[in-house]
């Protein structure tokens, strides 16, 4: 699975510009489902026709990033954020823009050139090595999007890379489709790779309206509480996929989360229970569609979410695939 994850991490896909990621995923799942299509909003849907209730899995293709809002006369760029960027961690980062240009983020402060005192985004700028507005405009425009420059590092079972949120969810979904025995699938299964989750869970909202599933399960990342002096969160790397109880946007359906827990117990798959107080997933949008959809989430405990160094444990990822496979097959 490592190569698949690496391929996905290196794909350029900030919110609203997910095409590169979509292309990779489409190729990966084409042979594993009955039909693949793109909906009106740009979500990629893989469908395995099945009996009984319809189940929608959702993993989002987009990642957080920046957008160019200004190019000054000397070729320095100003940017705005796409999704939940941690402003305090932006200075000193390498940004990769559409088209391949790279930039370095720094900040303006006459009094304190080596220590960021004022963390307002308006004080930050990006240097792409351009010498003037004209030369900069050959490479970027107002509205050009950028991401943390991709990287990928493996140490034993630990992977560190930007955009594991939520390329890991996409990888889990793809791997699941590869290992599912189609004839044993006991749901009418829609695996949706959604767009624009990071800027408002938009893809999931419209996809869920379109499909109107009976059950919805989001595949995403969640926090980890196993770093030095971390806030009290009962989640850790390597302790198994996290079955959501609640987050800032929803309380997971009792019935579905209990089914997931029972499936894990019955098959000796390690799992954790997730209660987090900040952040949410596509499941929050799916839950309130039309007359309501019983929704839950299976997440991978991840450190440093929304930074270039997101870190998780592959055993959790493999166990997540196992759990979902057992949940979906007869």
């Amino acid at each position: 699975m490592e190569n698949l994850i690496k391929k996905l991490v290196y794909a350029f896909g900030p919110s609203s510009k997910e095409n590169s990621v979509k292309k990779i995923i489409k190729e990966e799942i084409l042979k594993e489902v009955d039909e693949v299509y793109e909906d009106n909003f740009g979500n990629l849907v893989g469908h395995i026709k099945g009996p009984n209730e319809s189940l929608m899995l959702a993993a989002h293709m987009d990642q957080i990033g920046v957008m160019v809002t200004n190019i000054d006369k000397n070729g320095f760029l100003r940017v705005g954020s796409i999704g939940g960027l941690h402003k305090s961690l932006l200075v000193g980062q390498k940004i990769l823009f559409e088209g391949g240009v790279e930039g370095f983020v720094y900040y303006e402060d006459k009094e304190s050139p080596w220590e960021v005192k004022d963390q307002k985004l308006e004080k930050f700028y990006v240097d792409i090595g351009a010498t003037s507005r004209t030369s900069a405009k050959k490479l970027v425009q107002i509205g050009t999007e950028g991401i943390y420059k991709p990287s990928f590092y493996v140490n034993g079972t630990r992977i560190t890379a930007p955009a594991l949120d939520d390329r890991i969810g996409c990888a889990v979904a793809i791997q699941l489709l590869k290992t599912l025995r189609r004839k044993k699938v006991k749901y009418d299964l829609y695996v949706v790779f959604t767009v624009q989750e990071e800027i408002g869970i938009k893809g999931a909202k419209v996809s869920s309206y379109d499909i109107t599933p009976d059950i919805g399960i989001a595949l995403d990342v969640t926090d980890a509480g196993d770093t030095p002096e971390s806030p009290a969160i009962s989640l850790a790397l390597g302790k198994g996929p996290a079955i959501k109880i609640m987050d800032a946007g929803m309380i997971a359906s009792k019935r579905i989360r209990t089914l997931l827990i029972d499936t894990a117990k019955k098959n000796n798959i390690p799992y954790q229970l997730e209660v987090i107080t900040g952040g949410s997933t596509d499941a929050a949008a799916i839950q309130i569609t039309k007359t309501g959809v019983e929704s839950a989430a299976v997440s991978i405990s991840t450190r440093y979410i929304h930074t270039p160094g997101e870190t998780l444990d592959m055993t959790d990822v493999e166990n997540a695939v196992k759990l979902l496979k057992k949940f979906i097959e007869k």
Partner: protein
Amino acid sequence: MNQKLIEELTNVHAATSEESELHSLITKELSNYVDEIKTLKNGSIYVLKKGKPGKYNLMLDAHLDEVALFVTGMTEEGFLRVHTKSIDLKVLPGSIVCVHGEQEFKGIIGLKPYHLESEEETKKAVPIDKLFVDCGMDKESVEKLIPIGSTVTFMSGFSHLNKLISNKSLDDRVGVYTIIEVFKSLKRKLPLINIIGHFSSQEEITGLGAITSTYTLKPDFAIAIDATFGASPNESERKTYKMGKGPVIFIGPSSDRIINKKLFAVADKFNLTLQQEIGILSGTDATEIQLVGGGIPVGIISIPLRYMHTPTEVIDPTDVDKTVNLLSLFIEEIDDLFLEALYGEH
């Protein structure tokens, strides 16, 4: 006021996501007064009384869930860590709570002994990460019996305060009570329109019940019955409403002008006292209901309630009786003129 019923309703522990705890009580109270009772997947329950000709549906809404804490983990010693969205942390130290694990357990949220605390410390509210629930259990027992995500509610303590009433979860059991009593008062009547009583889930967190039930039930208009801020010495007059002076009608962009006009006309005709809350968005299910589908005209009637979201909420029973009366009369006074106006100009 039916004191037994309000006591029963407020004594039930039904935290957000556990609203089914109230379903049997509501079914018991209303089965002889309505034509249909049904629970929904989202945790809500609704009842329906058919009217004649019954071309329109009015949905009365109150929320079942009470504010709660959620278990987020535990310490080495077996103390529970908790999280809450809408409870003031200052009311927690020194209280007994009810933990809903594999079964119900009592717990204490305690503080360091006073003797060992510095004066500086006693001046600050205790932050959530320093508050623990002590159920008297060790780590192993907690692991077995109290899973992460378990809800924790206030212990009930129904009391009469002179003529007023106090208990936990009067927000919004007073609304639930009101709707039940309205249906009882309509027993021998046949309203022009169908009346739906919707007892909603998860109002305190996402409004899940209000949003999805409304999509299912598709009412033509709705009235939410909830609690608002009752006057007390620690609140300014401008932000609170008097106890005993009757129900509070919400006036502002998120309530419908025609519905309010009718409520005031009914109050006028029958000499009922009403108060007015002027605001922009009411903090009730109505805010969500209004935006479902193609839009739904909504009204909000609130009962003044002191010390909201604490274990010792207080209401005046006469305000509740007046609210029941207002709604029953409103329903009886609905006529074609009103219905036309509702769907004409806004």
